[in-house]
């Protein structure tokens, strides 16, 4: 039985309409939420930021809103979880495929992963959401958790 993506995101880790100056600010904000929820270790935020610099996760979608899926190694993760932010103003991430290219990102899924075989459904659901233009636009306009719940099936 497939769990809805929304039920796998801690409500405390959904932040809508964030004003953040850069990607590090967004990552720290979301990592703090995952830390409070007991999903990750103290080391998670720094590890994600370091990994983002070396192996970026910006995904250019060729649309108005691009997405980033920052994450890091399992050793910094206590249990699987996702944090989500919509940004009031896009911030630059680097392109996963080409680190020299900037991608203006409006939607961020920070992923705490520790087991690839058990988290494949969650990963597939995130990617399916990213590929659904209406879902991405809906999330960008979401003003409440109810709005998010209606979109993340």
């Amino acid at each position, binding site marked *: 039985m497939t769990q809805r993506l929304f039920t796998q995101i801690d409500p405390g880790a959904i932040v809508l309409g964030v004003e953040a100056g850069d990607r590090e600010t967004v990552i720290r904000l979301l990592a703090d939420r995952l830390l409070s929820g007991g999903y990750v270790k103290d080391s998670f935020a720094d590890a994600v930021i370091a*990994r983002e610099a*070396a*192996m970026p*996760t910006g*995904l*250019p*979608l*060729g649309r108005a809103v691009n997405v980033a*899926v920052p*994450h*890091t*190694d*399992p050793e910094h993760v206590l249990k699987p979880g996702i944090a989500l932010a919509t940004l009031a103003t896009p911030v630059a991430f680097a392109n*996963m*495929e*080409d*680190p020299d290219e900037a991608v203006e990102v409006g939607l961020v899924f920070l*992923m705490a*992963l*520790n*087991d*690839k*075989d058990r*988290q*494949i459904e969650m*990963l*597939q659901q995130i*990617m399916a959401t*990213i*590929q659904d233009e209406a879902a991405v636009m809906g999330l960008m306009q979401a003003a409440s958790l109810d709005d998010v719940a209606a979109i993340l099936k």
Partner: protein
Amino acid sequence: MSIKKRVLFACGTGIATSTVVSHAVVEAMKERGIDIDPRQCKATEVRSELGGMDLIVSTTQLPSELPVPSIVTLAFLTGMGKAEALDKIEAALRA
């Protein structure tokens, strides 16, 4: 009669995006008559993992001058250019 091939799927951590790509490619190639034995690793570990591999598919930049054919694509994450990416993978595996 399907052919059997070994493909190494790589990404930054070796557990996140390469998992999505591996599942998508294995399924799609099954329909095209190619049976893939998938492996996963970090992009930085590719060189030590590519023994016996027919192809490397990665979501992130790979070390240069690898002795095995490789394809870097975000198509299975973004959904853009998926058919073309599958055609390229099939062509590489049938070469």
